[in-house]
């Protein structure tokens, strides 16, 4: 395909979209690693209002057992037990196998330090909340939200073709997002991140007194904590797919558009 080098350049991302994108990238990185640090203090997930010590409402548990003189990491999910030595429960700490939920590279700080984990987590939680609020307001004002993110009936019709194209790695470079892009961005920005913030706030005893219905909505504080963890997994999965798609779609063009705003399209009309 030969064409004029500059003819396909379009201004794709407004400044606010780009600034908030990188703010989320940084905030979510630190939130993940400090969140895992916080989780290490009680690496169990429960369903309901409280944690079952005399009854069983645990759905996930990361721990260590000693078997014939050997430390073994054991992760239990919905009653199924998995040997996760080296990754979860028992990890390599400076050459020694140690009973610890996560390896050092997964947490901030790398060693056990709940107090510092909380300080890092709540600082970047504020960054996340402020960035999401700024993005929502500016995207409502400049119509980005309605034009580019919210899927419409046309997207529903184009969805099967879009899935088929993605399956064959036939990626389009247009100014507008495709149906799968809209769906995934809407899911993350309008569902996952607000839920992440809401379940996080539900764990706060102060906020709980202010809006007690939130805890009831999520099925209790411990259920909210479990949801917070589950949405973290969704966000990590999104991040992996997002980066893979950027690499497949042409990383320099995609990165440039998220830094300068300018994006080179195929020139084809949707």
């Amino acid at each position, binding site marked *: 395909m030969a064409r004029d080098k500059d003819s396909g350049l379009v201004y794709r991302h407004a400044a606010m979209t780009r600034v908030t994108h990188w703010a989320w990238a940084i905030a979510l990185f630190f939130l993940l690693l400090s969140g895992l640090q916080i989780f290490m203090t009680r690496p169990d997930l429960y369903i309901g209002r409280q944690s079952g010590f*005399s009854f069983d409402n645990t759905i996930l548990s990361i721990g260590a057992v000693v078997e014939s003189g050997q430390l073994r990491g054991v992760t239990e999910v919905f009653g199924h037990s998995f040997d996760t030595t080296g990754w979860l429960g028992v990890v390599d700490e400076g050459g020694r196998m140690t009973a610890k939920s996560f390896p050092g590279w997964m947490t901030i700080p790398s060693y056990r330090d709940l107090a*510092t984990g909380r300080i890092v987590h709540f*600082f970047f939680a504020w960054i996340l909340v402020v960035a999401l609020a700024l993005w929502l307001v500016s995207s409502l004002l400049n119509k980005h939200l309605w034009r580019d993110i919210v899927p419409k009936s046309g997207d529903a019709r184009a969805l099967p073709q879009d899935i088929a194209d993605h399956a064959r790695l036939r990626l389009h470079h247009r100014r507008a997002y495709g149906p799968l892009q809209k769906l995934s961005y809407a899911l993350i920005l309008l569902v996952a991140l607000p839920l992440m913030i809401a379940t996080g706030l539900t*764990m706060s*005893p*102060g906020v709980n*007194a202010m809006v007690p219905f939130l805890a009831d909505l999520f099925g209790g504080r411990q259920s909210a*904590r479990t949801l917070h963890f589950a949405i973290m997994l969704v966000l990590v999965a999104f991040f992996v797919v997002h980066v893979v798609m950027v690499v497949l779609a042409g990383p320099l063009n995609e990165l440039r558009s998220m830094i300068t705003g300018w994006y080179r399209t195929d020139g084809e009309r949707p």
Partner: protein
Amino acid sequence: MTPDPRRRRLLLGGAATLGTLPLTGCFDGAVERGGTVREVLASANGLTYRVQRLLLNSNALAQEFPASEIRQPMRPNGVTNPQDADYRQLASNAFADYRLTIDGLVDRPASYSLAELRNMPNRTQITRHDCVEGWSCIAMWTGVPLGLVLDAVGVQSGARYAVFSCFDTLEMGFAGPVRYYESIDLIDARHPQTILAHAMNGQPLPISNGAPLRLRVERQLGYKMAKYVSRITLAASLDGFGDGYGGYWEDRGYDWFAGI
């Protein structure tokens, strides 16, 4: 656009190199206590405190639950059996000689026996205890509202904090035993659910849960709810108590405001 294969190779090579860098612990130094980065990050807790105080009605109640939610014994945490001589002495006599001292910026410093506290108007509440570790446990607590005790002694205008001194020693420091202590502001001190609890789940408070008297501050995390309380001091500042951060855990890096 057809991506330049050389560019792609360069990029993938760069990513592979990044992946082998020793990233583990690269933020450890920055977030250490005493550093500037840590100070900036920790300032977010001050913001959380101010926003909660702004948005949260000072009398908004923490959730209370029906008796059917008391499904297990209250999980004891922290020190569960203090070995301090003065405490053992009181415990040997079922705390008959115990007296709660209230001093500092008050008009009429006083001390109360357990019987005197039980005879004041009491409040019973079934609430959820949220530990900073992440777990929750629901139990019923009975005690005298701290606000009533404060009214009885008369809080002076300069007072900003209620500081709770405790019997339990957690470690030996250079200057002798380091005992647990905690502090709250006067908004939480006068909150209707803030009680000095002497009973739990309808029974006298067990030693493992803080007998004879423990604090309940239902809109904050468990470490604020001092067990084995011996003295309440009204103060204008947290200086002069422990390392000056307002509590045993606060002196070890935990946030003073634990409403989050």
